[in-house]
């Protein structure tokens, strides 16, 4: 190992020590387990994942200020609440009052944005190949697709529903910087919202054979007094032959429903 390599390794271990949060580790890595790696040495995040456990996964999207596994979803600030400016909080309350017809996901089947896509109660697949300049995230919800680029820079004048994602590896953690958002999405069904100044930094760390710890630091200079941070487990689907199905909510009015929810194929998905 070169001196630079040794320094990098030391920095990686140090950063893992400094930035790991006790509440973020939903489980300890099992004894003797090492993270599987692709041919390029990067941790293998491939698989079909879904937030939390079967019994609790619908609760996260219901309210980001709620709890999962007995702990606040929002790990910082410690009170588990979004640190809104007064006008941001007023807007949240307005949204909450009209959420049945205004929630862009539940009412309109629109794109959920980031981080909401990551904790919708639908399976999502991380697609990662050795040496490739992108990682893709596919969701069963309206065939959402995130392209996460290891190259290039954020866009310079376009507002996107899902933001623009640029990533790098920080040791064994995938760090994704997401910017260029529009102001159209909500964080959850409770009307928690953001402006086009939203900036999200995600951290994906595989901490066990069936768990990725997903953390996101969310800042918005227009709506928040300071950033806040969420931490959630993404759990691997291990059912045999499990695959993404389709949830095309906007298409339902056009004819016979085509989702697996209507004709479930328990051999393959849900």
């Amino acid at each position: 190992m070169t001196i630079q390599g040794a320094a990098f390794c030391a920095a990686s271990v140090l950063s893992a020590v400094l930035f790991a949060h006790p509440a973020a580790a939903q489980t300890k890595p099992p004894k003797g387990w090492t993270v599987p790696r692709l041919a390029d040495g990067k941790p293998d995040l491939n698989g079909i994942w879904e937030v939390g456990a079967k019994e609790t996964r619908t609760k996260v999207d219901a309210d980001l200020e709620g709890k999962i596994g007995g702990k606040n979803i929002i790990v910082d600030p410690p009170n588990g609440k979004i640190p809104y400016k007064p006008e941001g909080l007023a807007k949240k309350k307005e949204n909450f009052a009209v959420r049945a017809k205004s929630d862009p996901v539940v009412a309109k089947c629109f794109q959920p944005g980031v981080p909401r896509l990551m904790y919708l109660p639908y399976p999502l697949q991380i697609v990662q190949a050795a040496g490739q300049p992108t990682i893709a995230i596919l969701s069963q919800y309206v065939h959402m697709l995130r392209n996460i680029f290891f190259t290039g820079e954020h866009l310079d004048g376009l507002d996107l529903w899902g933001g623009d994602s640029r990533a790098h590896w920080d040791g064994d953690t995938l760090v994704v910087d997401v910017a260029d958002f529009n102001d159209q999405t909500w964080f959850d069904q409770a009307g928690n919202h953001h402006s086009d100044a939203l900036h999200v930094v995600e951290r994906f760390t595989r901490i066990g054979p069936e768990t990725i710890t997903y953390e996101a630091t969310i800042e918005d200079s227009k709506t928040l007094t300071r950033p806040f941070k969420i931490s959630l487990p993404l759990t691997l689907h291990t059912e045999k032959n499990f695959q993404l199905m389709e949830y095309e909510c906007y298409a339902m009015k056009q004819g016979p429903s085509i989702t697996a929810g209507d004709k479930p194929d328990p051999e393959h998905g849900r």
Partner: protein
Amino acid sequence: MKRITSLICFERAICTVALAAACLVQTAPAQTPAPAPGPGRGVGSTNPLLNGNPYISPAEVKGGPVKRLPDGKPDLQGYWSQRTIGNSMSMFSVQQTDGRPAQGIPPTKGIVVDPPDGHIPYQDWAAKKHDDLGANHMIEESDASCLPGGFPHSMYTPFGLHIIQPPGQVVMTWEFMHSYRVIPLDGRPHVSPATHLYMGDSRGHWEGDTLVIDVTSQVGRTWIDQSADFHSDAIHVVERITPIDSNNLSYEATIEDPKVYTRPWKIAYFYSRILDAKYEPMEFACIEGEVDNTVNERVPAQK
């Protein structure tokens, strides 16, 4: 902190080796060049996707030997653009149009290679329905409703095809409609025939250097193109993708549907690798905020 430190120390030997391996591999160069940063991305490119008209076919650029994955299979990864006869209008009409404009597009040779006359072998009732759809029901055109196109339609949509080959699978994604499909290579069975999916259900295997993809379980709602060429939910597609060199793929698909066609028929064309480093797939938000219908209230319904 103490708990975390003890965790690190307990696993230290393994962690150190793992991190060391990661560090060493970190220095490997990226396999593709970084896109040019900053404003004007794409402007001035000769690639039709990036300069004005994404519907025109790219030029053919010969490549080198086919790249290979560690297991010896062809490495088809990267961004591709379809290259059809004349231009990329196959999204508009896969059939040849007998020298006439069809649905507002100029005459096209299409991409049907079998039957040799370039036409889809419709059953009689289906030929009548095709004409009726084209004359009176263009509102049912499936791209217009933001529906994922299914197959083979998705393979010739504009704006680029992305192929990724994680272990045991081939994954394709498209900027258009932000569609994707996952093609397992492990021989698992198809989903139940009672399940119908807009993007169908794909299963793949290699025959030499040809990726063979079997697609079942599609819905009947999607069209083959934007010119009222339709199918039922009994459609079955078998595709064959063969690399010619590092920059070119050949693509053919055999389409059968006993409810609609008199026999199987076949399309064939090529893909060119997108060589412009400035290309990146972008977001495609479809149902969110579209206004064509509002404006089109002043435009007569498509006849």
